[in-house]
């Protein structure tokens, strides 16, 4: 054979790293893209990006150290950097998991204890010599952190639905395979530089790392907005109203299919039946508020009443006379995002129809807008 195993191994491992960096980039990119929606759960994309980015950089340092560095002093620095980067990645992701957002998924106290325990490996990588066995003591903690992160990911899948669930499943599968590659590669990799004729280790290591990163990349591409858990359970009803005529263009009752509807929701449904009250009442509130607060150029976005919220969105030209009302229980950022999505879809579909509404009779209007039901069902499928 004219090519050594090293020349076969290295291109593939660098390609794996390129895939890994692409995946980390996608997470960060989608975080920045969804950032303006101000949905707290989206931060997970930022932490995923940082976690995978730092971990891959750690692995890259390990490869550079094993294959290209001969100076003992620089080798020591690189060995410490490998552990340092992976530990920082683990602690950062654990820090994010410990937030209140995930208290239903994983025990935050346990997570905090785990973060605290990571102080020991941090100290060990600075005080021990990389040539000693004690130096590799950090592996135990890193393994526990990774295992904990896997449990978190598994629970996250259980609590999610829709498109995001599929993506999380891919990320979980990719993570499991990537960890497997680390297990295969971690101990023998450092020896591979000297034992290049060892395809039994090199081939499974390359296969698992590439496959793991490819699956992770597939999970990261077009990652949707991460809406809060159970956000759909809060929805009560939606009204799309023509401000000029005070007439309803479209309405949707989210509770009609709910199995365990409580009394407070039921009482609101009775109110919902009176569309006129809703539309005229809302316009009245908007007018009063605008006059009292002297805020003609600003619009009311939210009204809270007891445990309920009324979210408002306004159409843009040419449908600026249309406004969207969403009745929800409690308060969630995801509900606002949901209403904005409805507004955008409605605008896209009916922007040419709205300007001629005055020429149409009531039954024609009702028939035109009833087609929006299909779109509504599609929107409801997200997450």
């Amino acid at each position: 054979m004219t090519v050594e195993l090293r020349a076969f191994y290295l291109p593939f491992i660098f390609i794996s790293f390129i895939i890994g960096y692409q995946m980390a980039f996608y997470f960060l990119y989608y975080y920045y893209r969804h950032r303006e929606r101000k949905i707290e759960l989206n931060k997970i994309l930022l932490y995923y990006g940082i976690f995978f980015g730092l971990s891959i950089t750690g692995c890259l340092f390990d490869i550079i150290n094993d294959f290209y560095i001969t100076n003992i002093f620089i080798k020591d620095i690189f060995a410490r950097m490998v552990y340092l980067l992976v530990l920082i990645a683990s602690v950062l992701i654990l820090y994010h998991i410990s937030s209140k957002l995930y208290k239903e998924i994983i025990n935050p106290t346990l997570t905090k204890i785990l973060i605290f325990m990571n102080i020991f490996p941090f100290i060990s990588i600075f005080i021990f010599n990389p040539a000693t066995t004690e130096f590799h003591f950090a592996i135990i903690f890193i393994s526990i952190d990774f295992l904990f992160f896997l449990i978190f990911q598994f629970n996250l899948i259980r609590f999610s639905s829709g498109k995001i669930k599929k993506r999380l499943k891919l990320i979980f599968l990719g993570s499991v395979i990537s960890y497997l590659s680390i297990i295969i590669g971690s101990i023998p990799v450092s020896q591979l530089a000297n034992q290049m004729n060892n395809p039994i280790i090199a081939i499974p290591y390359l296969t698992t790392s590439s496959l793991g990163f490819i699956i992770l990349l597939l999970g990261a591409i077009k990652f949707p907005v991460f809406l809060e858990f159970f956000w759909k359970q809060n929805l009560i009803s939606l009204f799309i109203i023509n401000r000029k005529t005070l007439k309803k263009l479209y309405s949707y009752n989210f509770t009609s299919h709910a199995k365990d509807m409580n009394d407070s929701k039921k009482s609101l449904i009775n109110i919902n039946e009176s569309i006129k009250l809703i539309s005229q009442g809302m316009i009245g509130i908007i007018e009063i508020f605008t006059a009292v607060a002297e805020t003609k150029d600003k619009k009311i976005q939210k009204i809270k009443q007891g445990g309920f919220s009324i979210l408002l969105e306004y159409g843009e030209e040419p449908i600026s006379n249309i406004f969207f009302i969403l009745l929800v229980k409690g308060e969630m950022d995801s509900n606002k995002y949901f209403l904005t999505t409805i507004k955008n879809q409605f605008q896209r579909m009916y922007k040419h129809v709205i300007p001629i509404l005055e020429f149409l009779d009531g039954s024609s209007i009702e028939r035109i807008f009833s087609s929006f039901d299909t779109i509504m069902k599609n929107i409801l499928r997200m997450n």
Partner: protein
Amino acid sequence: MFIMLSQVIFPIQGPFQEPLLIMEEIVIFFALEFGFLFLIKYKIKKEEISNLQEKAFSWFCLGYSLMYIVYIISDYYVEDSYIRLILLDFAYFIQMIFGLLFIYNMEKFQIFFKKFLFTFIFIVFMILFVICAFIALEFVHTFSFFFSWIIYIIFFFYYMIRVSTSKQMKKILRNFKWHLFQLYSGFFFLNIGYALTTYVISNLFGLIGRLIGAVFQIIGLIFLSLYFLSISSITEYFWREKIDSIYIIMQSGLCLYTKHFREKRKSFDEIVASGALSSVQIILELITETKDLSIIEKEGKTMIFQPGEYIIGVLVCEEDLESIRITLKNFVQKIEKIYYNVLRTWDGNLNVFKPIEDIINEVFI
């Protein structure tokens, strides 16, 4: 030193072997990745016009990566020079097949000089390539480089000139110069990079030239992919000038809407026309026993019928392009989506269809 570097001996060995393999396998990876990315994009959004060019570019990338795989096997792993020659010719043949698919798909989207002109030229050269392979195997390499690559270059040049001189695109696109930069630099880097990896130039500049060539190809592929990814908003404007008029008619033959994009002919009864058009569609459906897209071609004019559940969209245009077909299908689907419940129980009120004018303006103008 220069002389030493210039002596390229196959299979490639020595200090350049490892960095070259790394860079060239990265070229394969990027070409494969972009190829699959564009192919998946095409499969997901099959009914969009821009996808024809994305599909074309996916073939280009896939062919490029396959060619490179065979290229690497022959240059690094094969010691017998005759087998190496056969493998190299096989690599060029693969690239020619995928190149043909690329040009064919590009020409499906728009016409360059004459319909499928480049596809035809490419097929002729492919036949000559095969004949050459049987007669003189040692010349196949030169033949492929000087002919098929030259067709590619002419095709790309023509395409680039067309894109850069399009006034409409200049007007519509904000980042027009940036898109042009992506296209030009992608073309430049890919071609220079490819040239540097060829046997003739490798012998002049040595393996360092080949290494630089691999880096150039990676840059070129990234730029071209960025261009084709962002092109979706640009591509729609090529076919718009080809459309004459559009008719939206009920299955019963009643005309819902008509629009003439050019000067309207006198003494032409639209009500009669729509009835006649509907009859044509019914006859075609009866003959073929299918309710699908129908195309009637006459020299210089084409009529495309797109039946929906309740309506038929008829486009009169200069040429039958797939981009026009897709647009018409999307348009009919959009109208039926908005007016689904109205069309189902239509009472003859035409006022309700007034917004079609704006929808047509949005889709076709």
